[in-house]
C-alpha cells in the first residue's frame, strides 16, 4: 500500500519537482545571503550579477589550475571578496552612488570574465570541462524514501547554503558583531558615536557579501556544469536582489524567498512540457512574486540608511 503510493507517478513527479526547486534555488539563496550582509551594512548591492559571474569564472579557473574543485570554490570566494573590496572602496571611500557602482560592477564582471576566458582558454564561449563538485549521498539518510532523494542527495553547495543560512542568522541576531551591523544599516552616526569602527564593519560586510555571491556563481559553474560559459549567470543576480528584499533582509527570509523563486521556476519548466504558450508559462515566477509580495508580505522594511554615505562630521546630531 505505502510501497505502492511511494512509487506512484504523483509522488515521483513531486519529488522531482522539489529536487529541481532546490537546484534552482541554491545559487539564488547564496547570492541573496550575500546581499543581506552588504545591505544590512547600508550598501545597496546591485552588483550581485557581476560578483556571481566572477565567482563562476574563478571557481572553474581554480579547479582547472589545481585539479581540485574545492580549491576552485576557495578561489571563487577569494575573487568575490576582492571584487567586493573594489566595490566597497568605490562606494565607501570614494562615495560613488551605490546603484551606479553596482551597474559598473556588472559591466566589469561580464567584460573581465570574457576577456580572461579568451586569455586562458582561447575560446570566447566556454571553458573546457574541469573537475566539478557533484551531489553527495549522505550515508543511510539518502536511502530514506522521498526525503532521502530530496534532501540527502544534494550538491554540497545546498548543504553549505543551509549551514550558512543558520550561521548567518546566529551572526545577525545572536552576536554583537551582527547587532552592530544591523545598527549600522539603520543609523551609522549613532553607532559611530559609540566608538564602533563603522567603516571597518561596512567593508567587511560588503566583502563577505561578495564572497557569498561568488559562491552562488561557483555553484552554477562548478556545481551544475563543471565549466564556465560566457554570461552564464544570466540575470540571477537581480532575482537574488529581489529575494533579498522579499525575504526582508533576514537570512532565513531570503533563503525561503529563494526557494519560492526556485519552486516557481521548477513549476514553470514543468508546465512548459504541457505545450502552453511558453511566454505565459515563463511569466509564472514573476507573477507569483508579485502576488506574494502584494498579497502577503506587506511590510518589508529596508535598512534606513541603505544607500547613504556616512560622514561623521556632517551629520546633524
Amino acid at each position, binding site marked *: 500500500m505505502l510501497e505502492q503510493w511511494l512509487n506512484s507517478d504523483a509522488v515521483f513527479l513531486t519529488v522531482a519537482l522539489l529536487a529541481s526547486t532546490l537546484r534552482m534555488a541554491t545559487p539564488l539563496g547564496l547570492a541573496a545571503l550575500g546581499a543581506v550582509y552588504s545591505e544590512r551594512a547600508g550598501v545597496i548591492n546591485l552588483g550581485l550579477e557581476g560578483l556571481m559571474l566572477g565567482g563562476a569564472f574563478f571557481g572553474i579557473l581554480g579547479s582547472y589550475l589545481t585539479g581540485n574543485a574545492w580549491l576552485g570554490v576557495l578561489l571563487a570566494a577569494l575573487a568575490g571578496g576582492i571584487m567586493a573590496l573594489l566595490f566597497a572602496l568605490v562606494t565607501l571611500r570614494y562615495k560613488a552612488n551605490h546603484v551606479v557602482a553596482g551597474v559598473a560592477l556588472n559591466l566589469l564582471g561580464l567584460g573581465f570574465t570574457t576577456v580572461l576566458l579568451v586569455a586562458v582558454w582561447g575560446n570566447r564561449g566556454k571553458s573546457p570541462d574541469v573537475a566539478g563538485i557533484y551531489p553527495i549521498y549522505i550515508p543511510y539518510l539518502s536511502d530514506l524514501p522521498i526525503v532521502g532523494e530530496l534532501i540527502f542527495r544534494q550538491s554540497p553547495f545546498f548543504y553549505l547554503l543551509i549551514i550558512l543560512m543558520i550561521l548567518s542568522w546566529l551572526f545577525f541576531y*545572536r552576536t*554583537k558583531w551582527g*547587532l552592530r551591523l*544591523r545598527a549600522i544599516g*539603520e*543609523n551609522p552616526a549613532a553607532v559611530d*558615536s559609540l566608538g564602533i569602527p563603522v567603516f571597518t564593519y561596512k567593508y567587511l560586510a560588503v566583502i563577505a557579501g561578495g564572497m557569498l555571491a561568488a559562491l552562488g556563481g561557483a555553484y552554477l559553474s562548478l556545481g551544475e556544469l563543471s565549466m564556465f560559459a560566457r554570461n552564464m549567470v544570466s540575470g540571477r543576480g537581480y532575482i537574488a536582489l529581489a529575494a533579498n528584499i522579499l525575504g526582508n533582509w533576514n537570512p532565513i527570509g531570503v533563503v525561503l524567498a529563494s526557494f519560492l523563486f526556485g519552486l516557481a521556476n521548477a513549476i514553470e519548466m514543468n508546465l512548459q512540457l504541457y505545450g502552453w504558450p511558453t511566454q505565459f508559462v515563463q511569466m509564472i515566477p514573476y507573477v507569483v512574486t508579485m502576488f506574494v509580495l502584494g498579497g502577503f508580505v506587506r511590510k518589508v522594511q529596508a535598512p534606513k540608511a541603505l544607500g547613504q554615505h556616512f560622514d561623521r562630521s556632517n551629520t546633524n546630531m
Partner: protein
Amino acid sequence: MEALEALRMNKIVKSFGSLKALDQVDLTVAKGEIHCLLGENGAGKTTLMKILYGIHQQDEGEIYLNAKKVKISSPKEAITQGISMVFQHFMLIPNLSVMENIILGQEETKMGILADKESRNKVANLSEKLGLKVRLDMLVEDIPVGEKQRVEIIKALYRGAEIIILDEPTAVLTPQEVSELFKVLKTLKEDGKTIIIITHKLKETLAVADKVTVLRNGKNQGSITTDKATPEILAQMMVGRNVMLEVVKGKVEKGPVIFETKGLNLKDKLKNINLKIHAGEIVGIAGVEGNGQTELLETLIGLCSPTSGSIIFDQKDITKDSVEERLDQGLGFIPEDRNDRGLVNNFKLWQNAILGYQKRYEKKGLLDFAAITKASETIVKNYQVKVLGIDSKSSSLSGGNAQKLLVGRVFYHNPRVLIIAHPTRGVDVGAIEYLHKEILSMRSQGKAILLVSADLDEIRQLSDRIAVIYEGAITIEGDGGDFTEDELGLYMAGGLRPESKVVKA
C-alpha cells in the same frame, strides 16, 4: 580651596567653511562639578561638545583632561578617555530594543554569543541605582520621548564615563522627568562624576548647575557661578540685551466658539475628547509626552480620521475633510517636530516658506515666483529668521530660526484656527520671548488657538484655559489661573481620575 580641574578646553577655534562656529573659546570644568553651557541657537555649544567628543576636530586650541594634554580624534578615543555624550537629537536605533541600544558597543558576550542575562543585570542595576525606569524589551520606536531620553542617559552611564555631556536633554521632558533627571545628575555628582549640560532653560540651569559658561556667536562670554547668577543676568549674557522672561498677557474679549471637537475617539489612543476653543482664546493641552497628544494633533489636522466623534469648524463638520481642505478653510498647524513634519531640510528657504500654501502661489498651473519671493522675504523680515537669503537651504537654519520660519509660515498666511505643538522646543530664550509674543498677538487678533506643550511654564503663561491629557483622555480642564505648577504636574502624572473632574465656569 580650588577643586582640581577635570577638563580644560583652551582657545578652541572651529570653522565650517566660511562660518566661524567657535572663535578662541575657553572652557574649564572642575571635577565633580555640574557645568552648564548656555547660548543662543547656533552659538556653538553643540560644536564645542562635539569637538570634546571627537566628532569634530578643532582647527586650533588644546584640550586638557585632568591637566593632561590630550588629542581626541574620534568618539572611540573620547570614550576611552572616560567621556560620554548624550546628543541633542536622539542617537538611538528605532527598530532595536531598548536593551540592545544601551549595550551597543559594550556588549557582554560568552564566546562571541550575546550574553543576555549578564547585560540585563548590569543595565537593570544601573537604572535601579539611578531610578531611571526603562522597559528593556520594548522597541525604541515604540517608547515615548521621555523614556527615550532616559535610555540615552543610561546608555551614557553604562559606559562608566567620568565626564558626561548632555546636549539639551530636557527639551522634551516634563517637570517631573526633569527633576528626576536632575536628581540623577546630583547622585552622579556625589559619585564624583563631572557633568556638562546644555540647555535653553535658565531656571533649570540655576536649579542644577554649579557653574555656567555662556557662548554667543562662537565667542566665550565668560563664566559665572550659579550662586551669583539670576535668570535675567544669564539672559543678558546670552543675548546681549534685556530679555522679558515673563510674557505680559493682555486681556482679550473672547468671541464665539469657532473650533470644537465632539466625543473624539481614536482606537484606544484617544478617549472621548471634547474641546471648545473660542476666538481670541488659547487652550493649552498639558500632558506627559505620549499620552495621545500626537494622535490628537494628527486627528485635528486630518492626517488620521477618528473612529468616532466629530470636529466642528465654524459650525461646519470637517471630520471628513482632507488635510488640504482643512488648510484651505484656515486651519493653521505647527507640528511638534520641525524636522519631521515641519520642514523639508535641504530644500530652499522659499520652498519651505510656502509649504502647505503652495496653492495660493499658483498662476495658471505655474508657480508665481514674484509672489513667492515677496512672501518669503516678508516672513524672514517679520519673523526675524536669521538666514543669508531665501535661497539658502533650510537645513542650515539653527533650531531657533527653523522654528521662527515655521511659525512665520503659518502666521503669515493668516489662519483662523491655530494648532501649535511645542513651539519653543530646543529654542533659545531670545527666540522664546519672541515666539510667545507672536502667539499672543495672534490671540489678540481673535484667532482660536490650541497649544500643545510639555513645557508647563509655557502652558501656564500663555493659556486662557488648560486641559490635561492623560492616557488619551482629558482628565481635567479649567481656567489658566486655576492650577499651580505642582498640581498640573500631578494631574499630568495621572494623579486625578476623570470622574473627579472639576470644571470652573
